[in-house]
Structures are given as C-alpha cells and as structure tokens.
C-alpha cells in the first residue's frame, strides 16, 4: 500500500477563517470560485475563538475505504484517498466514519470530495499557496512530529533556561 509521504499541516492559531484556501481549492478542482465546492472546510469553534481548517489526513489504515458500500473510495498513487464519482451514491458513510469528518459533500451532486494534494501540480497544493497567514504548510512525514517536539522543547526552555 502506498502511504503518503507529504502531509498538509494545519495551524488553527494562524487561521483567520478568510476562506481563501477554499476559493483556491474550488478554482483548481472545479474551475469556479465557490467555497461550497472546496475539498477542505473550515470549522469555527465559537467557544474557543478558533478557526480550524479540516483536511483529509490520508490515514494509513483508512476506515473510509473499507466502509464504502460502492467501493468508490480508492487509494491514489500519491497516497491520498479519492472518491470515484462514477459510482459514488452519496451515502456519506465515509463522512461519518472519518475520525475528523473531513470528506466534503458536493452540494450539487451529493457526492463526497477529498483533498488530493492537487495531484502533482507544479505550484504545490493551491490552498497552501493561497494562504497568506501561513496556517497551512506542506511537510514531510516525520518533520511534522519533529517540529512539534522542537516547539514544546523551546517552550520548556523558556521556563527553565538551561
């Protein structure tokens, strides 16, 4: 099985909820500017005053592939999971089983859509390019955890220098 080597890392603290990534995503995949057609979504958590972009994490052992009654969810060459729109019947089983609720539902067809990392576009994923705040960035597998560990270590160093 192909696993994805590069991940989109999100930083809710930087996200302002401006939706530019949604516009870029719909432009890239559907050719129109319509945030409803974007493959990622931004969830607003009112009580925490946070805007959280939600993107497919392309789980290694993806439950959405197993649960789909039509076998429409398939693993792509670059490790992402995509919905085959020829057979998808819009039952949303993949949305329900997803640990983050990431598959977006196309409001016009009822079928689900999932981030495909813009399939080897030279510019990289368009949402990353569009984000002015730097809330989305592309990372290689282990750098994600390494960065988090480094940040935590820096925080503890600030409290206990040396």
């Amino acid at each position, binding site marked *: 099985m192909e696993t994805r080597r590069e991940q989109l890392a999100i930083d809710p603290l930087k996200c302002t909820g401006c*939706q530019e990534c949604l516009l870029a995503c719909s432009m890239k995949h559907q050719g129109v500017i319509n945030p409803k057609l974007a493959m990622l*979504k931004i969830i*607003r958590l009112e009580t925490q005053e946070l805007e959280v972009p939600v993107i497919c994490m392309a789980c290694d052992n993806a439950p959405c592939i*197993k649960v789909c*009654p039509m076998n429409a969810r398939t693993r792509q060459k670059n490790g992402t999971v995509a919905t085959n729109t020829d057979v998808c019947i819009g*039952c949303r089983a993949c949305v329900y089983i997803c*640990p983050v609720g990431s598959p977006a539902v196309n409001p016009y067809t009822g079928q689900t859509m999932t981030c495909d990392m813009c399939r080897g576009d030279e510019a990289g994923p368009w949402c990353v390019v569009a984000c002015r705040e730097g809330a989305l960035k592309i990372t290689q597998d282990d750098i994600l955890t390494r960065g988090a560990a480094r940040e935590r270590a820096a925080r503890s160093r600030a409290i206990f220098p040396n």
Partner: protein
Amino acid sequence: MKTVIIGNGIAGNRVATELRQRNKEIEICILSAEDVPEYDPCSLPYYLAGNVGKTDIFKKTINDYKQLGINIAFNSKVVAINPEARKVITEAGIEIGYDKLVLAHGGALFFPPIEGISNAGVFSCKQMSEAEKLKFHKGRKAVVIGSGAIGIEAAEALKKKGYEVHIIELLGWILPVLFDEPTARILEAAMERQGIHIHTGEKVLQIKGDEKVTSVVTDKREIECDTVVVATGVIPGTALAKTALIETGRGIKVNRKMETSVPDIYACGDCVETFDSCTEEIVMFQLKHNAIEQAQIVAKNILGDNIGYLGAYAFARVHFFNTHAATFGKTMRATQCMLGKSELIEKQSGDDYLRVVLLDGRVIGGQAVGKYADYIGLLIGAMWRKDDIEQLRERWNKIPQAGAAYSWPLIQLGQLVGSAMPGSTNQI
C-alpha cells in the same frame, strides 16, 4: 500449498487477492455457489433503483481472476467438508483437496415460516439473481417485510421505481437493532414524508394469493399488493461447518487468528461470530468493513504471520432520499441490561439529532441524524480509546489556546459531549 476458499463474496475475494499480492506461487481456488464474478451485495439496492448500472456493482471480471491466477469454479456449492482427508465435496459430487481451507460463504437469508411465502411475487434482495428478478418484475404496490438495513434500502429503491411501498416491522420501531426509538421516529417521519407507509408493531400472518401475490395479511390489517420483499435478516451459514464438526455458536466460532476449532480451516465474513473490539463481547456484526478486516487477518495467518484480530466494530449508516443517519456501538436499549451508571446526551436542532450513550462515563454508543452525523467519527474514536468523558469535560473547560493545534479533535469532541457547556458549531 493449495488454498481453497469457499464463497465468492467480499471476504473470499479479499483473502484471495491479499494472498496473491504477497505470494505469487500459492495455488488459490475459489468455489462460488453463484454463476457471476465478484459483486458487491451492499450496492444491490442502488442497482435495483437504477442509480448505478450493472457493470458498476461488479468488482471483478472473469479476466481479473485469470490475471491474478485465481482458479474460480462457478455453480459449485460445497455441501460437505472432510477434514481428515482434507477434501471438500460439492453439490455435484466433485471432491477438491486442500491444504488450507477458508470458509467465507457468508449467510443465508432467513425466511420466516409465513403461509404463502413461496408464492410468485415474493422476492428477496440479498443475492444478484434475486435482485435481478425483482428489478425486472412489473408491479405497482409492494410490501417489504422487515425493516433492517436491507429492508429500508429495498423500500427506497422500489419507491424510486414508482411503487407504492409499505414496510411492516414486528418490533416497536424501524431499524430496531441499529437505532433507539427517538432516532427511529425521526427517520420514520422522514420516510412517511416521502410517501412510504410504515406499520410498526405488526405481525405478518399470511401472504395471500394462489399463483401470484394478491395481498398481505397482518394482525391489524390487510394490504393489497403484487410484490413482496422479504428482508427479515441474514442467518450465518453454519450448516456446512457442522459437517466438519467445527464448533459453532450463533456463527462459526473462531479464535483471534480467525482459525476454527479444526486445524487448517479458517473462517471470515458474515458466517463467523467474533467479538466486539470495544466491549470484548461475542457479537455478530455482519458488516462489510468487518469482513474486509477479517479477510486480511486470514490471509496474513495463512502466510504464517501470526497476527491477531482486534475485533469487529459496529458502525452502520442508513440514508434515504435526503435524510442521512449513522449509528455506532450499542443502543440505549441494549445498554439497559448492563450494570453501571448509564447516561444519555441528547442534542437536537431542527431535524438534526445526536444521541450519545455513556456507561460509567465512557462512550459506548451513539446515533446521529443530519449534520451531527458528520462528526460521529470523533465519538467512535473516543469509544475506541475509552476516553473518560468527565475528565474530557474538565480538560475542555480549561484547555489552553496554545494547545489547540495538537488537540483540536478534543475540542470538537468537547462540543459534542460537553453538556455542561453550551457549544455551537458553525460549519462554513
């Protein structure tokens, strides 16, 4: 090594392809009771309704079997297994030897002993051949007996085909195994709005008609109809296993490596009884994702990997027209006979409804309709991890903003189960 797989369904084919991917030499033989390549029984109702074409429900063609080097024998229903001689015997009397045997023949549809159930015009919707007959049957009024997942989907498909549809359920509400009463009532109301008539708490006494079905008699009324669909459940095929003296309970008994009590015979799919990954109880979830996982475990163990199965998980969803609902774990009704303090979290806004069942402060099940269902995966995660909900609520109330990047699923989860804090989710 020769591996014989009985059953050409999801589980059987998965075992075959997994084996072939890892090992090119192994001899694989699938024995199918039907005469078509692998298809997906889950998608039969959509084929019936005309949502998808016939080619879309097939997962393989005959050529695919050739390319993978898998021998397939159609119309070879296995009637007996002889473990001493390492042979299986088909209906036609042909004996096939094996080194490893996989039982993946699934279950058979349960036909209740109702008078007139073998009349013309009585169909089922589990196998390709039956669904095909139903698709080309011409009628205008249908009665669906039983309101499980198959019954509901068949009813929707028939409604889309232009039938007048009645559903008859013996128990108090539709989908009684999957949903509790309040959730089922919302779904019932949604179905009634679409023009499907639902009669709960009624028992079918007789199917009338000499040659063709003319009406269905229940203990409360008589419904005129020309089509009857029986969807009263699937019973695991244990009869075959009994011929080899394999231990059976409700289904075929297996250990964590998916081995039956007889050496070199494995079982997976709808015909086995397995245990719940969360509660460790013996259960039978005859669901597709469990069949796939079990088949993967079987394939790995045949190749000598020694891997244990982590258990089945209950997750199902139903949808008809524009209403979507999902359920996981146990229902409140199944929880009532368990020891411990159970708690119920309910949220409702309009037609959207969320119901989470907690036992001793841990999530053990839930149901959702509408937008809440989109985040039900978070609750399934909480059930798997056995999160302490009291602790979670406390943490959620004082979660520092700086931790948000790492714990946003926790925040979202807190919004769903944190009944102490009124939370609102706005999805853009």
